[in-house]
């Protein structure tokens, strides 16, 4: 095998299962690739070479013993550094957790291990998943493999870039306002946000509890569906986890790959008609809609009048929850502790720890959220935002009475150069304009590459009703069957 890193996850699993290559060889090929390119990409915060090889050896031993292997056994996977990994450093890209090794695995990580996947390491991200460019990582940004001078999207830029750079065939991301889909779009990869509650949040370092959703990143829709099916399903340790059978997304992806969308009704969100989006992005989006029509889908315009308030509602709800979720980072029980010299009071130690440990965007959101929840402002801000959330949910519900899925561009613009939006937080927040409504609603959505603009990838977002994750996989796979998989320039 000349280049194992170019194979899809499905191909790798089949090759390993057939015995043509060992899981150790596959793991080593990816570790070598990381060694060769990650200095330039910086997708990883921590590479677990020993752990990966041990897991791979385990798969090989099981195969040798004739044990049955799961559909992704031996396939390498990279995990966003916001999920806890037992004994393996987990920082959420924050200084406040530098060097912390959790005593437990996130449920998703447990499931990945049980499925025999090989965890390569932990990927870079915006600190505590707050950001849309991975520039807010306390450990330096990740570079987009399509153009190393540009951002890889955020907050899951590390996971998306690792896949685009062939460092890993699969990765886990988390999506609070678009952090799987948006990096997927700007790196030309597939990223899916499952139904909220469809994947466990246990072990996911909380940013915004009511929005955070872990999900798969891959180079193909089929790979994403395979990973999705391994990590999804009810978890009694997460009260918000839905006690229901996950739809068969793998079968849906296979069905979509036949390229037939006859009988599928697709809605275009009128309010996402192009305002604030780059012309090149809108052109690629229109081409994609046309391609879907050619596959037999019926396309109609649907008005979702409250989507225009999604961004402000999101920027009250998410920081409010974050301000509470991040309160535990106080220097008392784990992670960084500043001012511990016997000369400072408890309050001062907490304050100095947080001052030293949190980056600017995290501080901004804690302050925003604290303000929005404070007495006297709660009703005007947090309470009002929750009402908007209800209205957005109603928009979705009524839309899905008319169509099977909704589509839109994933991001309003292609990958932008570093530093171009950090000086104006609002410009940065716009990156998630199209992805945020879905998080407020809780339904699933996927970003799939639909073409290029100025030589950079553009993604199509497909949104489905809650617990109908299979529908978006079907449409995404169908589009992929005509657009094809994007290949970035050689690094």
């Amino acid at each position, binding site marked *: 095998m000349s280049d194992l890193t170019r194979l899809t996850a499905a191909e790798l699993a089949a090759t390993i299962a057939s015995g043509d290559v060992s899981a150790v060889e596959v793991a080593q090929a990816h570790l070598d690739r990381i060694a060769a390119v990650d200095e330039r990409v910086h997708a990883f915060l921590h590479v677990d070479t020993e752990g990966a090889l041990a897991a791979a050896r385990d798969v090989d031993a099981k195969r040798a013993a004739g044990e049955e292997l799961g559909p992704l056994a031996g396939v390498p996977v990279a995990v966003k550094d916001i*999920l*806890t990994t037992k004994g393996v450093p*987990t920082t*959420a890209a924050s200084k406040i*957790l530098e060097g*912390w090794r*959790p*005593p*437990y695995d*996130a449920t998703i990580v447990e499931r990945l291990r049980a499925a025999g996947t090989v965890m390569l390491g932990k990927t870079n991200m915006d600190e505590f998943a707050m950001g849309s460019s991975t520039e807010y990582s306390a450990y330096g940004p990740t570079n987009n493999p399509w153009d190393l001078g540009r951002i890889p999207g955020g907050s899951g830029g590390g996971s998306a870039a690792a896949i685009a750079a062939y460092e890993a065939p699969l990765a886990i991301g988390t999506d609070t306002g678009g952090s799987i889909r948006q990096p997927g779009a700007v790196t030309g990869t597939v990223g899916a946000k499952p139904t909220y509650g469809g994947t466990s*949040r*246990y*072990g*996911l*370092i*909380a940013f*915004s*509890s*009511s929005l955070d959703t872990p999900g798969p990143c891959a180079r193909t829709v089929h790979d994403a569906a395979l990973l999705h099916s391994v990590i999804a399903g009810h978890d*009694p*340790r*997460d*009260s*918000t986890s839905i006690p229901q059978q996950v739809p068969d997304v793998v079968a849906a992806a296979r069905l979509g790959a036949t390229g037939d969308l006859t009988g599928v009704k697709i809605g275009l969100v009128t309010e996402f008609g192009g305002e604030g989006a780059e012309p090149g992005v809108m052109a690629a989006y229109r081409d994609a809609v046309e391609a879907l029509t050619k596959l037999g889908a019926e396309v109609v315009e649907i008005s979702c009048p409250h989507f225009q308030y999604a961004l402000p509602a999101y920027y009250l709800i998410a920081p*409010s*929850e974050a*301000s*509470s979720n991040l*309160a*535990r*980072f*106080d220097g*008392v*029980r*784990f992670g960084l502790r500043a001012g511990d010299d016997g000369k400072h009071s*408890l*309050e001062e130690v*907490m304050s100095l720890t947080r001052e030293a440990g949190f980056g600017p965007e995290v501080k901004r959101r804690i302050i925003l959220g*604290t303000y929005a*929840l*404070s*007495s006297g402002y*709660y009703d005007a801000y*947090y309470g009002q935002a929750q009402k908007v959330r209800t209205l957005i949910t109603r928009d979705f519900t009524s839309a899905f009475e008319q169509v099977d899925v909704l589509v839109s561009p994933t991001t309003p613009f292609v990958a932008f150069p570093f530093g171009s939006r950090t000086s104006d937080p609002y410009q940065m927040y716009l990156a998630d304009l199209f992805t945020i409504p879905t998080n407020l609603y809780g339904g699933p959505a996927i970003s799939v590459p639909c073409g290029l603009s100025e030589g950079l990838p553009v993604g199509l977002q497909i949104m489905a009703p809650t617990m109908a994750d299979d529908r978006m996989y079907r449409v995404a796979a169908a589009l992929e069957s005509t657009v094809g998989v994007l290949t970035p320039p050689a690094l």
Partner: protein
Amino acid sequence: MTTTVLPPYDDVVARYEPVIGLETHVELGTNTKMFCGCPTEFGAEPNTQVCPVCLGLPGALPAPNRAAIEATIRIGLALNCSIADWCRFARKNYFYPDMPKNFQTSQYDEPLCVDGYLDVEVDGEMVRVEIERVHLEEDTGKTLHVGGATGRIHGATESLVDYNRAGIPLVEIVTKPIPGTGAKAPLVARAYVTELRDVIRSLNVSDVRMEQGSMRCDVNTSLTPVGETEWGTRTETKNVNSLRSVERAVRAEMIRQASVLDGGERIFQETRHFQEDTGDTRPGRSKEEATDYRYFPEPDLVPMAPDAAWVAELKAALPEPPRVHRKRLQEEWGLTDLDMQSVVNAGAVELIEATIAAGATAAGARKWWLGELARRANEESLDLSAVGATPAQVAELQQLVDEGKLNDKLARAVLEGVVAGEGSPREIMTARGLEVVSDTGALTAAVDEAIAANPDIAAKIRDGKVAAAGALVGAVMKTTRGQADAKTVRELILARLGAQG
């Protein structure tokens, strides 16, 4: 600070009308914590009953304990509350090192149980205490300040935190303000907490031990000058940890507030702490700069919707209310209202009940608990249940008396040993050699000695003045250091002197 002369209580209640309110926290006796599977055993080595969830480690999530929800609903039903058909948890945000997440998962504007009442008896009169809400939350850890003289944070060189208690389910029971109790306010407060404790104990959901902190009480007190309608500013006296202290704290705070108001000053809304040693209250932090808890619905937990059929089932299975139960016991034990009241006031109902169950007669059980043991409890400011004797031990003691192995005096000495933890009554009797001497051989010698030493009395008895025998019995008791059985001695004396008893 100037020294103020505190007004006498009678004077206070002549001029002011108190309004009281009570917030009681009860740690539930579930096997596992509120939101994780950690054990809840009291007194374990620090930080041995913890996991990522109750330590609030990054990524950990709560999963609610159904047994705790059930216990809370039962408490609500026993307090005549309505059970919400839909409710949810909220986060109460504030920073403290013994609170792992720096927010407490509690209930705020959507509690599980609302609008109930508890009838309590004070001086033979029924007082209805209205309950505003009963809700469920999680307990915090415990902070230990080391190196200072007082054990408080000031002067300490380091602080240690034990998170074993963090996450234990805690039920908070809040009364509505209770006006119109006048001079009886402290007694009403005590009677309410006592009754509440009995109700919760009857449900078998908590051991409600105030001295171990599994039941803790905050007492709100305000005063209104007689004739005025608007209630005064209240203070909250935190963590009062015995029934007696509840009564004392209300009384002390009434006197203090009256003295402040008499001086023309105003009462600040503040948290105060009851001082067990002096019996007064001292200020804690001022509520005027109260923390903004930034309550909001807990996004990590889905709302609760207790099934109506389940609630109905729990209601049907409630035990007899303690008040009704007591009425029944009073009849069984053949006590007057007054006698029963003293049993209740002493907190002895269940102890006597258990003692009877262990084999004692009602009279015997009542005698020891209300006599010797109540006296000791009072002297040492302890709850009767904490005085150091168990119902089984008291029953055994009474049995030894009934068997004639102990007389009253010796039994009291044995009880001393029981309270001192020397063992069972039988063991103590044997070890200390306290058994009644009824061996006639040994006693005859002592009787003969007494007759010889008191010829005048002996003569009177021979002449038929049997009542004089008492003096000789006393003499024999003296030489046998009280260990003789008085009845046997008397019989021996009469037999020796040929008199008829």
